[in-house]
């Protein structure tokens, strides 16, 4: 089987097992909801402040949620050593990463889309006319978070103190994603909305660089 068909089969398995257990999605959604509500209560922002600071708080919540969600993606494979079975079955280990990245991006996007109306209501932000731009930003930002996060999850799963290691490595590495995504979202949610193509370009480059690195070196991350 080829890389893409292997990745599709693996992605199907990831989605099926998650929608069957709903462990990750429900936890992540509840977590982001709590963080967004707490931010709203703590800052009690005016409309102007919401436009300036809201997107940053939103992306911080997504980042925290991602560090929570990415942790189990390889740890779950350790329970019955299923990662070994996958390594024996697929000809290209990058297929395993592609599937994990696809699933994490999908789950993160789902969480973000569910949280967007809640955020808009709590922070009094109107995004209706900017939905395509926001969706593009969410997609590129989530892909970047998932790509870097999946690589680090593979590394940290084999380490001691793994529960602490992933957030410690992930949050600094994803700082550029946080900054770029926030800038683009601020531009889209401002009183005079505009798409920040520079930020979108940065997010796209970040995604391509990390995907390429994973394609080249991913095999070594899966080794014992």
């Amino acid at each position, binding site marked *: 089987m080829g890389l893409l068909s292997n990745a599709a089969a*693996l992605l199907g398995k990831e989605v099926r097992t998650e929608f069957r*257990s709903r462990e990750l999605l429900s936890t992540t959604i509840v977590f982001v909801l709590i963080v967004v509500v707490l931010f709203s209560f703590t800052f009690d922002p005016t409309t102007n402040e919401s436009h300036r600071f809201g997107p940053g708080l939103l992306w911080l919540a997504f980042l925290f949620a991602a560090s929570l969600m990415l942790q189990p993606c390889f740890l779950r494979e350790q329970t019955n050593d299923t990662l070994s*079975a996958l390594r*024996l079955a697929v000809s290209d280990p990058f297929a395993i990463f592609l599937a994990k990245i696809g699933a994490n991006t999908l789950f993160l996007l789902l969480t973000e889309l569910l949280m967007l109306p809640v955020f808009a209501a709590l922070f009094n932000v109107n995004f209706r006319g900017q939905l395509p731009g926001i969706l593009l930003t969410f997609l590129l930002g989530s892909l970047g978070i998932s790509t870097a996060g999946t690589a680090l999850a593979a590394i940290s799963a084999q380490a001691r103190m793994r529960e602490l290691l992933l957030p410690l490595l992930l949050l600094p590495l994803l700082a550029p994603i946080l900054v770029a995504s926030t800038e683009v979202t601020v531009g889209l949610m401002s009183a005079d909305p505009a798409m920040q193509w520079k930020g979108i370009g940065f997010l796209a480059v970040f995604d391509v660089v990390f995907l390429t690195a994973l394609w080249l070196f991913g095999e070594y991350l899966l080794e014992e």
Partner: protein
Amino acid sequence: MASPAECKVGLRFEKVDKRYGTVYALRNLTLTIAPGECVALAGRNGSGKTTLLRIAANLTRPTRGSLSFSESTENQNPHTGFVAHATMVYDELTAEENLLFFAKLLGVTKRKERVAELLFEVGLGERKDSLVRTFSRGMRQRVAIARALLANPSLLLFDEPATGLDPEATTWLIGRLRTLRDSGCTIVMSLHGESEVARLATRAVRLEAGSVVADTRAGTTFQSVLSFTGS
């Protein structure tokens, strides 16, 4: 996917060391396994049997030395079937879903028929729609064995294959391994002492502290190599 008869695989471990931190799991191990051999690995806990099998499966890289494969036909695609301590199947999927998933990854043709055939063979035909997490240890082991056999492997690696199996399933396993051995499949299995499964072996290798301390083919010393008291 090549069947064992079409593609026989041999292995050669050449001065292999495997170190975890300061502890040697394998030390300067040299071992050649000819295509079609059925080798029983014996040894105490921590003697290096599992590490040797994981290196043979290409799941672990040796710290030093090398592993090479010899294949009697070059244009085939040999497959390794591995049954480890862990079952290597997903608890959240049913027995059938697990096997269909791995069959798809392995490129097995006529997947549904192959999976149904194996589930029937391992005695799980009636429980095919049950989640693996509801299975007993023995039933999980049956799914694990079925997974390893999915793609007609040319090389079979078993880490204590009869773990958790009831006498009926052990008898089935012995029969199945005998058929595979006779069809030319290379089999390497780690065992704890003498057992019914060990009688299938055409060769016994005993490991101590990561090195081969005894290596014999069928004969008078065979049982003593398998047993813990032999040296």
